[in-house]
């Protein structure tokens, strides 16, 4: 196993990075943590002629709360940055918790938020919780920047709406009325396993009544998907076990999983039912967003 030949750039600014991506077009790939990309290159599944490392873009490594607006997560934050972030622990522990469930400690030390999202693997752990929390991604390209809702970012396995010259700069989680959120990842062992199913939920509960809900499912379709029928069903209902169980049944009808080396489609479908119910229960009971 050895890396193929490639040209290597490590720009010092976002503008310069976008310029390089624009210049080399499809020949170029962005390198952040490399936890997926380098392995693929060694396994001959990927052979970019140009590698643009974004490791020098220090401004993308911050997690901050913008007063009155929301939490801004820089795209170059590692998963362990999320795990250890006081801002997230205080405001969105569910995001820190989703990051903690990823891969293993070594990967969490290197892998980045931007990489996890732009790689667009259906089983990625961060997109579902970001979608449930109505997060957006700020994309920067040679023609300027734009903001895309996380749920609109993915178009297929490995595919996003991002243009060739665009980078993810940050993820923004807006202040919201949701009272609880949760992500449950189900893998085939406790660490170092891809999600067979990932369920993220956010709920707004007042006096035991669900005012609003967002449910996002990972690893059970070509992209992370929102379970909109489930959300509609939940609105206005009392958060009883029966209601949450029914929500699980509805969610299991909203996914389109495949069978692969890890799990069959029917198993994944039933796991969506189980974990939607459990994630909702936890979000309702534990109360913090």
């Amino acid at each position, binding site marked *: *196993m050895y890396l193929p030949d490639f040209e290597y750039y490590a720009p010092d600014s976002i503008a310069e990075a976008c310029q390089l991506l624009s210049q080399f077009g499809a020949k170029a790939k962005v390198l952040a943590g490399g936890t997926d990309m380098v392995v693929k290159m060694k396994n001959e599944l990927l052979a970019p002629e140009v590698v643009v490392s974004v490791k020098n873009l220090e401004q993308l490594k911050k997690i901050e709360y913008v007063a009155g607006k929301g939490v801004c997560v820089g795209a170059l934050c590692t998963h362990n940055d999320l795990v250890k972030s006081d801002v997230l622990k205080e405001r969105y522990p569910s995001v820190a918790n989703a990051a903690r469930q990823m891969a293993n400690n070594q990967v969490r030390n290197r892998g980045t938020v931007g990489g996890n999202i732009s790689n667009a693997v259906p089983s990625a752990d961060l997109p579902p919780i970001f979608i449930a929390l109505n997060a957006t991604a700020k994309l920067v390209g040679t023609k300027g920047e734009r903001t895309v809702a996380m749920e609109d970012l993915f178009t297929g396995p490995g595919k996003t709406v991002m243009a060739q010259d665009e980078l993810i700069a940050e993820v923004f989680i807006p202040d919201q009325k949701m009272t609880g959120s949760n992500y449950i990842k*189900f893998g085939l*062992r406790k660490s*170092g396993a891809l999600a067979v199913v990932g369920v993220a939920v956010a709920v707004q509960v007042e006096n035991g009544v669900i005012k609003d809900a967002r449910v996002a499912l990972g690893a059970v379709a070509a992209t992370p998907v929102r379970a909109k029928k489930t959300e509609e069903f939940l609105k206005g209902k009392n958060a009883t076990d029966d209601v949450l169980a029914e929500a699980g049944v509805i969610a299991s009808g909203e996914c389109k999983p495949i069978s692969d080396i890890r*799990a069959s489609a029917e*198993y994944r479908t039933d796991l969506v039912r*189980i974990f939607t119910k459990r994630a909702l229960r936890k979000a309702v009971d534990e109360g913090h967003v």
Partner: protein
Amino acid sequence: MKQDYSYVGKSVDRNDSYGKTTGHAQYTADLKFPGMLYGKLIRSTIAHGRIKSIDTSEAEKLNGVKAIITAKDVPSMKWGLSPARFDENIFCIDKVRYHGDKIGAVCAVDEETVYKALKLIKVEYEELPAVFTWQDAAKEGAPQIFEEYPGNLNTEIHHHFGDVDAALKDAYYVRTDKFQGQRTYHAFIENHASAAYWDGDRAFLYSSCQSVHYVQYHLCRVLGMKMGNLTVRQTNVGAGFGGKLDPTGLDFAAVILSKITGQPVKMWYDHAETFLNGRGRHPMTMELTTGVDKNGKILAHKFDCVLEGGAYTGLGIASSYYAGSLLGVLYLIDNYKFDCRRYVTNLPPCGAQRGHGQPQPRFAFEHHIDLVGEAIGVDPIDMRLINARKGNSITTAGYEVKSYNLVGANKMARDASGWTEKRGKMGVGRGIGVGNGGFVTGAGFCQYRTDYPHSVGMVKIFDDGTRAYVYSNAVDIGQGSDTVLMQMAAEAMGYPYERCQMVTGDTDLSTLDFGAYASRQTLMAGWAVKRAGAEVKKKVLAKACEMLKASGRIKEGFGYLDGPLTPEDLDCVEGIVFVKQEPAVKLTFEEVARKYFVDHGVLLGRGWYHPGKLGGNHKGAAVGTSPAYSSATQVAEVQVDMETGQIECVDTWDVHDSGTIINPKLFHGQVHGAFYMGVGETIWEEVKFDKKTGKLLNGNFAEYRLPTALDMPPVESLTLDDSYEPNGPYGLKEVGEGATTPTMGAVANAIYDAMGVSMTELPITYEKVWRALRDKKASGK
């Protein structure tokens, strides 16, 4: 029987801990020699076919490529590990037999060039239909993988003791169950690597293997070399678990490429290639029938077993015999019928993996016997107590068993685990289960036919007595054999362990040992170095006696001595030689050894071990007969998520009847590691292949899922205080493999207790549990 020892029974530090924990330890792939070339194997990209042509011309033109070899460049003699079935060539001659089979080798000036060259080599095949299951291999008209195995039947075994049919007819209860095992992989961290160079007509090979002797023997046999002309050496070995016993294509190719190029050549496997090298656990299809009386006493047992063997035999014949040969050691079964077939298929060859052929049959039997007990209302541990063998007995097959305390192991595990309060009483989703196991402590025979001793040891004391070199080619593959061998040698000499050093991993410099397999080294190499140490001590005491007498210190005030001072009046402990009745009169080992060196030259002790004639006369008795047998009981407690099928193993207890424990820390390490492997094979691990092409699908640690530290339960590792084996040095028996044999049964039985559905197919994955629970619900039971 037990004595106070200086080093035996003490958790002394391992001799390799500094190097391995700091990263200084060198492994074969770390080696560098001036002018060294880098080499890799050319592998088949189809599962079964005739090689029509191999075009290496483009690769040869690549700058930096030094040599490319295929079957035409190497001897065509077949090799293997079972003398009756040598069926493997260095490189495929006419046919490839699995996706990944060895076609040739390339070496070049650097790694990158080797990989580039591999891509330029074009092999043309005439593709043949392939079979990937024994069921397909056994079909009428199935493609023939080897001419010598008609119907793809590689071996069959029929062991019939007593009268099974008559006993079953008389039984109070008879039950038949079917089980299916899976193909697993050793998952050692260090992949195979070899490095070779020549000096005149002598070759030197570094190999990451479990036996320098067998690698030397097999290479010399095939390459037509005198064994004195090939030195096999080792650096550290990053584990083996049975997967490094067979010589690899790398060993052969490195020696040959180095000869052709006149330069040192280092070769290595990438991780997926280590999977392709195979030699892991055979998937077994098993049918068990047992007849018992109303108390649960086994009257007769019938075991039908089919092994899917992969493309070559390797150690597969021994695996087949081991599938059935040890049941009669564990349990008293007068009427026993073992029928076994092994088929070849177009997948990587299977072979030996920790516990060899035994763990899957252990899983099947241990679960089956619980089902039998349940049907007649007998508690699982009572079933085992009723049927357990006791020490100083002879098995139905004629094996002689000295120490054996399976009864004690079961009782201790029962009490430690809180079995009586827990079994069947923990509610839905929580369960506890028991499994028994054990293993040989060394095989009774060499793998090829020879009258050599199985282990030879030597101790050389350095000139001034300040170091003891302990010689043995026993292979420390991480289990800590160097440490325990030095402990035993130091004990025997009465010399400080801290001043001992191993001379090992070198067929020139060190002394013969057959290597790390069949849990043999602690006993066999242990005897050899213990005897070598004892010879040193004898010489030291004689010299010390002479020195004391010459010193004149003995004359005054030692009137209690009955006659003149003799060596028998002296002892030596921890480097001090003293008069037993007057310990104040002493000399240091060092000064005595130095005097010996001045008077006679080098101070040497020699020892050797041969198990002699062991029990069993039937065909195949060689696999299973052993100087000593361990026994073990494990209890596992699990939590099953009754919705998702997720299994968590929450607690475990292991009692290993292992004789004297030489190093408790290493012993417990073996138990933990063995349980880890066993629980991994029970729940998570399986090597997968594409059903149409036979291509490996999960040759990496992301998709070949070993349990992680977070999945591993605490293990309470217990020992039986009175365990002592007369056939073992210092009374010891094995632990390394035996401790992995009860695990699958214990965990499977706990899962059954938790969920109420019998899981008979390994691995017991979350999805299989989910499906079983769903089906149970659907059937309304």
